[in-house]
């Protein structure tokens, strides 16, 4: 028995070779997030009682800012990919599913952009 889809058989084409991308991107961001989240969680804990200037200097130092921007990119990408799987599993209605996935992607992009702009502004002392 062939495992080809009817459409695949009709067209005679192989896979588009992109099926792995979602899965792989989820893993790459996961690996990146292991050191980044541990670093960030403990940094925030240490800064929890800091005054404004202390926190500002600490978050805005070049390496800190670079790591936080990396963290934000990886975390928001990872979140969008993960939420997509949740919607695909639990939202039965196709239109609602597409709307949920698209809405989450757009919101994650917006939030990610906002967070990165905040960090850049802090780092540049705006």
């Amino acid at each position, binding site marked *: 028995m062939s495992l080809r889809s009817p459409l695949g058989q009709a067209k005679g084409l192989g896979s588009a070779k992109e099926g792995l991308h979602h899965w792989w991107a989820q893993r790459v961001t996961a690996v990146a997030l292991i050191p980044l989240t541990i670093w960030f969680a403990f940094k925030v804990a*240490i800064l929890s009682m800091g005054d404004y200037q202390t926190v500002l200097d600490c*978050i805005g130092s070049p390496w800190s800012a670079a790591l936080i921007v990396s963290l934000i990119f990886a975390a928001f990408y990872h979140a969008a990919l993960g939420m997509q799987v949740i919607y695909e599993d639990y939202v039965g209605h196709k239109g609602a599913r597409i709307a949920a996935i698209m809405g989450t992607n757009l919101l994650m992009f917006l939030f990610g952009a906002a967070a990165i702009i905040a960090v850049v502004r802090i780092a540049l002392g705006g």
Partner: protein
Amino acid sequence: MSSNNRPLSPHLDVYRLPLSAMLSIVHRGTGAFLTLGTIVLVWWLMALAGGEEAFMSAQEFMGGFFGRLILFGWSFALFFHLANGIRHLIWDAGYGFEKDEVEKSSFIVLGVSGFLTFLVWIIAFSFGVGA
């Protein structure tokens, strides 16, 4: 009921989920919860970028009962998702699928996430800089 020993699929109304199944659904739950929590992170960074006044009011909220409750839940969700996520990466590499190994790693995940949550709060309360 048939007399042979073939496995039955679980009857979900009466089936007690094994620990590994519970951790599996909690992984999803914490993932969704952490996604929501990114809003708090964005808000906090925006407040810090917005100047001293905005930052101090954000700090005041996060230092209050409700803020700390959110942060506590968020920190445990983060460390659980982190520890269980590492377990998933190990599974992805093809290791640790035996039943006793899964049972053992479930307890390790719970222990590590509990320990890291405890540690981060101890650090926040004891070694936090400033006044």
